[in-house]
């Protein structure tokens, strides 16, 4: 291993020093000379006809440069959707137009109506308040089932209804599933809500558009998880700018959790306006604006049925889910409740018959898209809750019921179209029982009871599909993009290396972990290697970071490119030592002729590549730089088992997480410290969903939770220390690193553990509560105890 950390080392993060000293370079820290500022006037009603926009008085306000409305964007493309779902009848989903600025109607609170560009941000804001807007209110729909009733107000007048699609998966399974449920010894049914959440990365979105008239060149600085995706979507579908005239830069980005994947109207606006005004234009979202304009997450209403035979083997699962799309289709919205959700309904269990139905619905709310886990938390929550409920109904131990039904042989083809390559669910459950000290639970429960508190234990498993791929498969499923990634390894003359990657780091520590891989492969110090990311003019075309894909997909591309480097370097070394290439051994940064003491160092070879005085120019080119694109053969399937213990105060209904343990199988691990951190953060978001967070609209479509005063973010005093372990490792079989991805596991695996624990606590207190919807707030828990 390299002295400063190769694969498996808990190397401290090199990016930390700039973040700890105020030297980060976030998008709002970027100020382009001469920039103007835009403020968006947003709809304060959820649904209405835009009758009049009078900008005359506002345009005369100090500092105002120009006011844009929807009329300025006629003939300009709308915000595109990147995934087309085909419904159960073989018809394409209904896909409404999504203008950059509202045209004719407003469809959710926060829909942008006008954009004021002024010399200062304060002047733009002041002028926006002077715009006179007349809107005729229309009835709004926020409830999905109400939105599908005959005569419901239509969010989009040109669509036949508010139904985006009615999807069956796998439609051919349906008859067998119905029959299996009909003939089952026991069927457990559960109706539940997976509530709407807001991703809330701590850095609000920012976009700066710049334009050079001389070269007709555009630059967009934006808070994105995937700058090439933004360049493609905005350039090709919205503004008609060819790639070589459009640079997208996503510098340090302060968290994303999915919400910064998508192409947003504000990005297109600043790019458009910078050219129209021939001035840089900057937009910085306030947090209030973020609540009204960042794509939100989850928002499913589900009925799940689990059928078991007389020996408690799972025989069938049938689900019906309503998935809220909001008012427009965000970039990947249609794939979240379908291919990221239906494909995971087998979980860790060998259930032979599964059918998933999803009705995606338009409502007068902020668009919904992927949020950490994206479809997989929704699948896991249903499945792991219904299994717990079944165990109670049958009077069996919930852990034993899970163990009995585990998939134990791999590869395993599920009835929902995916094939798990590897896993060991018994091992992670064993590990969980150890690290969570489940044997000591009853003693801890007695201690809690002495304090007048109820204590509950919740255990569950999860599986996820990460590194979303292969391109041919996702294309067949409706993706309008490939899902490969790319890396360029540029070796410099003195042996130092820049690796340009398509993945984007916004908290994941790529700048530290990726060099560990290359350093290990080359046997040189990681300090000699830097990662370049986030700038389309510097990096190869990659698809960015989401879905726990960076190391599994982009890391694999980096390995492939490094392998090409090594292959070429061996040829150079062979030439330098006048030996046959087949005799060259490469270890610890030294090329040696096998069986001799002849060797040349890494730096000798790299120098020769760039100063090719003694060089096999008739065989190979000078220089040492290679690019690889990598398109995975399959998803990866991280899995694990989680345990939560809660204390519940029966006087108030307040639930406190007393202990939390997670045993994960992520395959091979590059940097265990970073992996631990990813799991911690995911768990906190999952506990947040289970106990605190809830994005609420009233019946008129007004957002009631539009700030941190109303939307309960998890804080330090809401959470315990976590016990996490990833020593169970079944390496992925189809990528060169054997890695599976760890970014979302915590958020996927933790909500059912918490709710299972809450139900257990209530039952221990003699309350016949079989389910409680999230968030299990004191009010809800107290109410449940009264029933």
């Amino acid at each position, binding site marked *: 291993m390299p002295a400063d950390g190769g694969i498996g080392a808990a190397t401290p993060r090199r990016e930390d020093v700039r973040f700890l000293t105020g030297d980060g370079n976030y998008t*709002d820290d970027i100020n382009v000379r001469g920039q103007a500022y835009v403020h968006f006037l947003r709809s304060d009603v959820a649904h209405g006809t835009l009758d009049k926009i009078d900008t005359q008085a506002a345009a005369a306000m100090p500092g105002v440069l120009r006011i844009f409305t929807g009329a300025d964007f006629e003939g300009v493309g709308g915000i595109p959707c990147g995934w087309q779902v085909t419904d159960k009848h073989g018809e394409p989903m209904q896909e409404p137009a999504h203008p950059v600025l509202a045209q004719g109607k407003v469809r959710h609170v926060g829909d942008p109506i006008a954009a004021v560009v002024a010399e200062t941000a304060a002047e733009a804001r002041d002028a926006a308040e002077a715009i006179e807007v007349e809107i005729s209110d229309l009835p709004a729909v926020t409830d999905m089932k109400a939105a599908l009733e005959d005569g419901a107000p239509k969010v989009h007048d040109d669509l036949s209804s508010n139904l985006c699609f009615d999807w069956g998966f796998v439609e051919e399974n349906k008859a067998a599933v119905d029959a299996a449920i009909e003939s089952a010894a026991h069927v457990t049914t559960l109706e539940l809500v997976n509530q709407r959440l807001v991703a809330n990365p701590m850095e609000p979105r920012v976009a700066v558009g710049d334009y050079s008239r001389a070269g007709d060149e555009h630059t967009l600085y934006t808070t994105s998880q995937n700058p090439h995706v933004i360049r493609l979507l905005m350039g090709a579908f919205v503004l008609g700018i060819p790639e070589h005239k459009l640079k997208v830069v996503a510098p340090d980005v302060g968290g994303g959790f999915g919400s910064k994947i998508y192409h947003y109207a504000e990005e297109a606006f600043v790019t458009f306006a910078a050219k129209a005004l021939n001035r840089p234009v900057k937009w910085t979202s306030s947090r209030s604006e973020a609540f009204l304009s960042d794509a939100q997450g989850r928002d499913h209403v589900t009925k799940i049925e689990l059928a078991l035979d007389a020996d408690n083997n799972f025989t069938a699962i049938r689900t019906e889910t309503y998935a809220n799309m909001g008012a427009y289709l965000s970039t990947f919205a249609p794939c979240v409740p379908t291919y990221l959700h239906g494909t995971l309904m087998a979980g860790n269990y060998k259930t032979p018959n599964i059918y998933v139905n999803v009705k995606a619905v338009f409502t007068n709310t902020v668009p919904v898209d992927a949020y950490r886990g994206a479809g997989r938390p929704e699948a896991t929550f249903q499945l792991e809750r219904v299994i717990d409920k079944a165990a109670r109904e049958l009077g069996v131990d919930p852990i034993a019921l899970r163990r009995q039904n585990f998939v134990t042989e791999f590869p395993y083809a599920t009835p929902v179209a995916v094939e798990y390559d590897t896993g060991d669910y018994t091992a992670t459950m064993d590990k969980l029982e150890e690290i969570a000290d489940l044997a000591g639970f009853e003693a801890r429960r007695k201690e809690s009871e002495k304090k007048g508190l109820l204590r509950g234990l919740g255990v569950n498993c999860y599986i996820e599909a990460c590194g979303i791929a292969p391109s041919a498969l996702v294309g067949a499923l409706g993706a309008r993009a490939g899902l490969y990634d790319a890396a360029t390894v540029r070796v410099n003359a003195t042996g130092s290396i820049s690796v340009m990657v398509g993945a984007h780091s916004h908290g994941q520590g790529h700048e530290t972990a990726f060099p560990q891989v290359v350093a290990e492969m080359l046997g040189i110090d990681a300090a000699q290697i830097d990662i370049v990311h986030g700038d389309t003019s510097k990096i190869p075309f990659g698809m960015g970071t989401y879905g726990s894909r960076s190391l599994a997909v982009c890391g694999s591309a980096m390995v492939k490119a490094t392998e090409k480097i090594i292959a070429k370097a061996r040829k150079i070394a062979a030439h330098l030592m006048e030996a046959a290439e087949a005799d060259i051994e490469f270890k610890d940064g030294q090329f040696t002729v096998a069986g001799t003491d002849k060797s040349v160092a890494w730096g000798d070879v790299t120098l020769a590549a760039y100063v090719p005085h003694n060089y096999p120019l008739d065989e190979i080119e000078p220089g040492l730089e290679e690019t690889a694109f990598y398109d995975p053969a399959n998803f990866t399937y991280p899995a694990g088992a989680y345990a939560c213990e809660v204390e519940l105060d029966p006087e108030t209904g307040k639930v406190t997480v007393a202990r939390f343990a997670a045993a994960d199988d992520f395959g091979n691990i590059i940097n265990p410290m970073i992996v631990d951190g990813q799991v911690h953060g995911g768990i906190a978001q999952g506990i947040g969903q289970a106990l605190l967070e809830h994005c609420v609209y009233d019946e008129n479509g007004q957002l009631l939770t539009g700030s941190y005063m109303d939307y309960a973010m998890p804080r330090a005093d809401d959470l315990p220390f976590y016990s996490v372990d990833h020593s169970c490792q079944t390496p992925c079989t189809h990528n060169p690193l054997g890695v599976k991805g760890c970014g979302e596991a915590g958020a996927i695996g933790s909500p059912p553990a918490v709710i299972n624990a809450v139900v257990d606590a209530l039952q221990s207190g003699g309350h016949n509560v079989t389910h409680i919807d999230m968030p299990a707030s004191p009010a809800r828990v107290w109410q449940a105890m009264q029933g």
Partner: protein
Amino acid sequence: MSQVSMTVNGKPASGEIEGRTLLVDFLRETLGLTGTHVGCDTSQCGACVVHVDGRDVKACAVFAAECDGAEVVTIEGMAAPDGTLSAVQQAFQDHHGLQCGFCTPGMVMSAAALLDQNPNPSEAEIRDYLEGNICRCTGYHNIVKAILAASGQDVSKIAAE
């Protein structure tokens, strides 16, 4: 517009401001000290915490004009002049107390203020003190651990990292 003068990270700083200019905007926009961040607009998230006359203050909740004559320290003033990190900063790196880094300046400034007041805080005291600093990445585990470590306490017994 009016003139405001203060000492920021030990150096005199002044500028023309509007009455409504917040301290955080003065630091970021006028002085170019972009280490102090704005994460919300309701004084909840704590990404903008700085020290004013020795006290930790949310810079989004103070007018720049109120700080006329004050001693202000921002995240840029926490490391030694040669770049050596302060004990709190170093502990955050050693214990992976940050991921995206956006809340980090406020976390470091709050943690430093806590340790000034209470050099040996308990886990519960740390969690309570950080109630006004939101982090979305770390789940707080490694932040709390880093602050315990920065105070010289043994963190080796804390549940697996």
